[in-house]
């Protein structure tokens, strides 16, 4: 039989037992749909996390303090080892660095007339804004002059604005009181939403580094240093330059350990992706089991089909079908079942994915690779589980098959 007729014959045979065929396909349909849905949710959350991390700023490097070991006892994070001179050192000697800004922070009660709010105040350099991909969506950001003058100015986030200036008042030009320091609002930060770790990035007040350093925290140390490399290829180079600069600035001997940490976004992303990958893997194994069970279902129904049609197979053998013809007929039948089921599974997977996005609001990404893999898996299942029943049919003795009741 030529391949076209084999497929026609297979389709006819399956249509004759429409309901049975559909039920047989169900296992594969569910398995494939599960693969598509899991994959799209996994990829969606991965993309979500990636975009959130990227929202921290492009090519960003974070330098955090990592206190020295004291008599073999590590002092834990939050210790202060970084100073402004490290920033100056980075700016001076690191050719791969584009922007560099220290960050000092404290939490304070802020007031405007009758309203007050507890929020985080950070002190940074003006270049912190381009470094983090931030701008003033209203008013302006501060300048180097404000920095030199330790000007009492600030940029506020949307959450702060909503709490201090309810009812749509324009905060620009108004003076708020942070702790005991009056700061003039000169701009409103663009909306940034949640961070990768779930913090509200709009619940913030940003002032010149010098203002916060001198007037509020009154300490030499900085909490963290934000750096951005000139471009993505320079990140590695920048990290080694920064490490060298700070080690020099801290007068560390070659045998001393770093008293700071240099983290890139790649590190953060790897950690986040690790979590989603474990999740995806778990769900994929559930889908794999479902596909296996579906495949066994196909094998089972193919055996029933061979038994049922023993006489038909005998007749076909008598009128000149070779055992290859018979084997191909049943193999293609199994293949058609599993591929049809695959197509239905892909369609229902896509529908479920759309529903999840529409109803639960989860971000989902359907990759063509998951569709191709589902299809390939279905083909393999069809051939693998169709093979044995097809062999059994092909090896039937024509006489026994003809006499079979």
């Amino acid at each position, binding site marked *: *039989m*030529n391949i076209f*007729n084999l497929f026609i*014959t297979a389709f*006819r045979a399956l249509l*004759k037992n429409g309901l049975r065929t559909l039920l047989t396909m169900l296992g594969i349909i569910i398995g494939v749909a599960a693969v598509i849905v899991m994959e799209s949710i996994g990829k969606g959350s991965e993309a979500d996390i990636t975009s959130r991390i990227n929202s921290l700023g492009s090519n960003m490097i974070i330098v955090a303090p990592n206190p020295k070991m004291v008599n073999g006892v590590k002092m834990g994070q939050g210790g202060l080892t970084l100073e402004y001179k490290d920033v100056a050192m980075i700016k001076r000697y690191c050719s791969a660095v584009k922007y560099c800004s220290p960050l000092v922070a404290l939490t304070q009660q802020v007031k405007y007339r009758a309203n007050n709010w507890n929020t985080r105040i950070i002190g940074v350099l003006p270049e912190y804004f381009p470094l983090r991909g931030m701008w003033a969506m209203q008013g302006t950001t501060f300048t180097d002059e404000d920095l030199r003058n330790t000007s009492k100015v600030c940029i506020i986030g949307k959450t702060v604005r909503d709490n201090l200036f309810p009812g749509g008042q324009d905060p620009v030009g108004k003076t708020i009181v942070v702790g005991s320091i009056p700061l003039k609002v000169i701009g409103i930060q663009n909306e940034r939403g949640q961070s990768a770790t779930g913090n509200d990035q709009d619940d913030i007040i940003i002032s010149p580094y010098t203002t916060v350093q001198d007037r509020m925290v009154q300490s030499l140390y900085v909490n963290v240093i934000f750096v951005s490399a000139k471009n993505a290829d320079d990140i590695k180079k920048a990290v080694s330059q920064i490490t060298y600069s700070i080690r020099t600035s801290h007068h560390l001997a070659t045998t001393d350990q770093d008293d700071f940490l240099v983290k890139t976004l790649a590190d953060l992303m790897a950690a986040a992706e690790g979590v989603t990958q474990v999740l995806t893997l778990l769900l994929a194994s559930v889908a794999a089991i479902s596909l296996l069970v579906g495949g066994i279902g196909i094998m089972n129904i193919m055996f029933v089909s061979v038994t049922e049609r023993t*006489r*038909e197979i*005998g*007749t*076909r*053998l*008598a*009128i*000149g*079908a*070779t*055992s*290859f*013809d018979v084997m191909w007929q049943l193999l293609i039948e199994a293949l058609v079942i599993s591929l049809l089921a695959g197509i239905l599974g892909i369609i229902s997977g896509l529908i479920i994915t759309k529903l999840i996005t529409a109803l639960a609001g989860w971000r989902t990404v359907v990759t063509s690779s998951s569709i191709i893999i589902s299809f390939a898996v279905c083909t393999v299942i069809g051939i693998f589980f169709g093979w044995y029943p097809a062999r059994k049919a092909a090896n039937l003795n*024509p*006489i026994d098959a*003809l006499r079979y009741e």
Partner: protein
Amino acid sequence: MEDSAKPVIEVKDVWRTFVTGGTPFSALRGINLSVMPKELMAIMGASGSGKSTFMNMLGCLDRPTKGKYFFNGIDTTEKSNTELALLRRDNFGFVFQSYNLLPRTTSYENVELPLLYYGYKYGKSQRRDMVMAALKQVGLEEKVYNKTNELSGGQQQRVAIARAIINNPKVIFADEPTGNLDTRTSFDIMAIVQSLNEKGTTVVIVTHEPDIADFAKRKVVFKDGQIISDEPNQQPKNAAEERLKLPELKEPGVAK
């Protein structure tokens, strides 16, 4: 006419032994037989005489345990299963007692089936012409697209005959072709068989009905796995004429 001088079927000392439950039983015991082209041979015998086993052997559906079977001078005992399948496809037509049509398919599809096993040899329109011609030959051109379950027994057997002749076979093997049919329909079927034989097809027919065997040109009788008589039928009856001689059946309710 050189071809007709050589036997189309030649069986030499054929044995067929089955082993059931450890005890061997020989259904065929040293059969020797030749069939010339254009013969219409009836194989007769009681059940268990080995006649069906013998026909299955002739149809290459089974192999002898011992002995040789030459078809058209070819030693079939040397052939592989696939070669035998192709031999059946190209040379044989089979008609079974219970028709063995594919369930829930049309006459057309059943008759077309053997042609599909030729791969790409016959195109769709060519197949169509051949199927129509075969169905016309058995007088079923009216029932081309009827499903087999919509046909009477006689009509189903005619579809089976059309399927058997679609590949223009050298030999038609019919195993009790009239076993499930009433006398009138049996005679109709035999008339078709006789007309095929007249057109040059060799026919081997297994039957236990003497009436049916009377239509053959040669009668071979089996008993206990051996041939006990092999005689030409000097005056084979004509099935079409015999059919006309049968009295019309009157249904009690219809009689006036």
